């Protein structure tokens, strides 16, 4: 069944790609190369035909900087076209691109994983999102994106909240993903309002279809905030050598919440990334980018359940660190480096989170801060020779004379939790003075096959080592080590 689905998707993408190649309006949208105010490349009637690029069609999930390419001053006539996405436009007054992202997985892990964890299934319709993205007038951009399946969010949350309304933040998790408006009147100080990602974490801020691995790093999934409702100022300075974003959010993101964990409250976050050698002529240096972020959130103990962060294994979602009771403030810090040169890339990121535990002892005494730390180092190489981009643009699509682009990837990471100080014997108690250290060391080896601009297949072998054997999810396993495998079919439109 799934094989049929995979073949069907590949066939669909091949035929769609072939069909679109012949479409008169399938010319490249080289928005990033356009100077502001210049006419849209989509309007063929207004400019001479350009020389066809090597791989002119942008992938549906390719980032296009619309602020540098304002809509052309076209007549206010309705048009429907398909360049990067199926799109409808009313001159430059209105634009709506229809987007879709589908990721379906086949899993395998240790024996008994599916018995112990009812959410772990061999076949998983992991992520199925549809959305609309576009603009009103010249300076109002918008996006609305919704998850069709509930794998990425706890769909039973609302039901649980109805039963137990005392769990604060129950309403936070939602099938709605990005729902925002971005005002670009000032290019260097754009104002974004709505629900979107809190500016924290390189891996977390990388789009789901651009990931080098099937799963984000543990730190990105469990320590970085992810999406929340708020407002932020963001922009690029010094000819894009510096990017910044700073905002205020209602809570501290969906990663810190669940149906049982209330998470943090009012959150302030900011991130800066710089490319100090952007203009360097030294090969391999110019694309070196450094980033740093910080966030601070208010933490309450209003919920009767522990409100700390939790640690879960990569694929099976087994909890190797249960949340502890926290109250006060949550501080997050992050530093990262990102490098791309030719067909190679490398990334590394370090994240630190500290939670106050005021009055959380058995006699309502203050406890030492709880702490979570993570880091990863990853690298990729495109063995078929294409330049490393996110997404990769194959030199030749499958079914059109090529084989697509094949990339090898590897990542090593660690996520671990403990407390800062404490004189007691370390234990796993959620009100322990000294928290017993618990972590997960993960090696991920992967192969990514970008079949064409619509379809990508990813295979990851994941070796995990649970450090606290008392929390080892694998029955009768004395080492804490286990392997998981996942094959993902990704289809974007």
């Amino acid at each position: 069944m799934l094989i049929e689905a995979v073949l069907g998707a590949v066939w669909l993408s091949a035929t769609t790609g072939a069909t679109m190649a012949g479409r008169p309006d399938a010319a490249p949208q080289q928005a990033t190369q356009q100077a502001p105010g210049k006419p849209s490349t989509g309007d063929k009637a207004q400019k001479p035909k350009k020389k066809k690029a090597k791989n002119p069609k942008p992938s549906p999930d390719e980032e296009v900087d619309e602020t540098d390419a304002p809509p052309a001053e076209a007549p206010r006539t309705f048009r429907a076209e398909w360049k990067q996405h199926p799109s409808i436009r009313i001159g430059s007054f209105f634009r709506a691109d229809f987007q879709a992202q589908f990721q379906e997985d086949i899993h395998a892990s240790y024996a008994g994983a599916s018995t112990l964890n009812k959410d772990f299934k061999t076949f998983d319709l992991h992520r199925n999102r549809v959305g609309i993205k576009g603009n009103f007038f010249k300076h109002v951009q918008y996006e609305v994106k919704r998850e069709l399946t509930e794998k990425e969010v706890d769909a039973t949350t609302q039901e649980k909240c109805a039963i137990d309304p005392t769990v604060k933040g129950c309403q936070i998790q939602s099938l709605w993903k990005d729902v925002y408006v971005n005002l670009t009147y000032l290019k260097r100080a754009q104002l974004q309002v709505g629900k979107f990602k809190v500016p924290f974490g390189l891996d977390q801020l990388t789009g789901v279809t651009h990931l080098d691995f099937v799963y984000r790093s543990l730190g990105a999934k469990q320590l970085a905030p992810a999406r929340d409702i708020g407002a932020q100022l963001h922009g690029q300075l010094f000819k894009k050598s510096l990017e910044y974003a700073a905002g205020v959010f209602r809570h501290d993101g969906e990663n810190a919440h669940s149906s049982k964990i209330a998470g943090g409250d009012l959150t302030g976050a900011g991130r800066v990334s710089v490319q100090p050698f952007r203009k360097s002529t030294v090969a391999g240096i110019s694309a070196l980018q450094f980033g740093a972020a910080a966030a601070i959130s208010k933490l309450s103990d209003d919920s009767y359940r522990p409100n700390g962060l939790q640690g879960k294994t990569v694929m099976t979602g087994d909890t190797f660190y249960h949340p502890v009771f926290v109250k006060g403030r949550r501080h997050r810090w992050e530093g990262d480096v990102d490098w791309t040169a030719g067909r190679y890339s490398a990334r590394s990121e370090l994240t630190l989170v500290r939670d106050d535990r005021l009055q959380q002892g058995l006699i309502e005494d203050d406890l030492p801060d709880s702490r979570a730390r993570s880091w990863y180092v990853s690298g990729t190489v495109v063995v078929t020779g294409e330049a490393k981009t996110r997404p990769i643009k194959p030199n030749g699509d499958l079914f059109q004379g090529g084989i697509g682009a094949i990339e090898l990837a590897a990542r090593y990471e660690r996520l671990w939790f403990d407390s800062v100080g404490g004189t007691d014997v370390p234990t796993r108690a959620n009100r322990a003075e000294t928290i017993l250290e618990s972590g997960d060391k993960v090696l991920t080896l992967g192969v990514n096959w970008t079949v064409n601009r619509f379809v990508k297949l990813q295979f990851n072998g994941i070796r995990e080592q649970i450090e606290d054997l008392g929390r080892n999810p694998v029955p009768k396993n004395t080492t804490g080590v286990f392997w998981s495998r996942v094959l993902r079919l990704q289809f974007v439109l």
Partner: protein
Amino acid sequence: MRRGLWRVLLTGAVVVAAGMTAAVRVDTQTPTAPQVDPANPVFDDSYVHEVRVAINPKDWTALEVHYLDNTYYTCDVKTDGVNVRNSAIRSRGTGSRSGVKPGLRIDFDRNVTNQTYLGLKSYVLRNQTQDASNMHEILSMLFFRRMGLPASREAFTKLYINNVYAGLYTVVESVDKGFLEKHYGENDGHLYKYDYNADDKPYYYEFRDGNGDSYVPHPFKPETNESDPQSQTIADMIRIINQDGDNIFRTTIAPYIDLPKFVRHIAMEMFLGDNDGFDGNYGTNNFYWYRFEKKTLFQWIAWDKSNAFIDGPTYPIFHNINDQPPERVNRLTARVMGFADLKNLYLDTLLDFANAFVDATATPTPFPVGTLKPVSPAATPTPIPTPNPDDPRGWAEREIERQYALIKDAVYTDPTFNGTGNFKPADFEKEADNLRKFARERGAFVKAEVAKIRPTSSSSRTRRGARAFPAPAFPASSLAAASRVAAR
């Protein structure tokens, strides 16, 4: 001469070797002192114990408010003066769950690997919210053990939450790997708990389908080997119970169930008038199931007998067996009662229990008290009265009086008997009287009921098969029909 020397040396060597072997054998045969279970003092039922829980006040409030949750809270637990830090406590129970007087489970090793209290990884604090006498459970389990059936050990305890008296509880031995090891000398088999939800349709061991997932984890919840629950074995057994004909049933079920042991289990529940047991009023309920290592054989272990005794001494000895339509009769019990020898065994077992219950010469308690002295100086053991040959009361009646005297003060000062709960001290007295009546009359009633069915029989005769029942109560065909009705 040389040959003679060799002979002497050889003979000597043989003698020495034999001597050494004998010496070794003697060593291995030296009787060792019987192992004393370090947990014995916890279940010494000769005095009311004392458990003090130190817990964050917010957590205790949360536990009371969200008593339907199984959320664990951190606490320090001081049992009879011995403190175990970083323990874990949660609300527990099914029908007995309460936000006023929560049923509790305490885990010593949840937060700290291998942490125990006197060898126990956990124990249960039963709240007895369905039993004003507080004695149904402890008396039942005592009688189970007295009759050689596996059951938890129990003792009364006063519970203090942050130094405030929260009420009288019963500390109950958990059915876990430690329990299995003590009873069976092994613990790596499959332990299941019958997991009944209040809104579940009553289950009577009817055949759902041949898929193990239809039985595990619900209603048979794995307590060990959770990742490999071997559910297919249960599906196979249920199929045999429901579908195999009488001509092969005894043979095909033998690898799964020791039928005489099963008969003993249901006879005990019936004798105690437990209306919420294997053949209870609400479908089957309240037992653990242990499947032995490398076998398909299952063993029943009793659990939660708070509903025993409540219907009085005239609780029918075939209640829910021959007074219900077939679709509301447990299929296994029905099959067993369909065989004359097993039905005779059932009746014989009831007679055995009736005799033991009223035995005036029996020792008051089989529990080996005094192996360790209570740690808490406040908890002074009550002297165990020696049986008075002139005292006509049976074992059960005397046991009830002993326990009544033991807990009366603790019940009268229990806050849930003084306004916050649904009981009053008068309810305690009334239910204690009901228990005394049960103890006095149950044995005679059961004997009379057995005599009605088997007016001329005796145990020995029936065991020789001299007498048999005319026809199975529920032949296999009617069971199949009942299953179809239930499925509809």
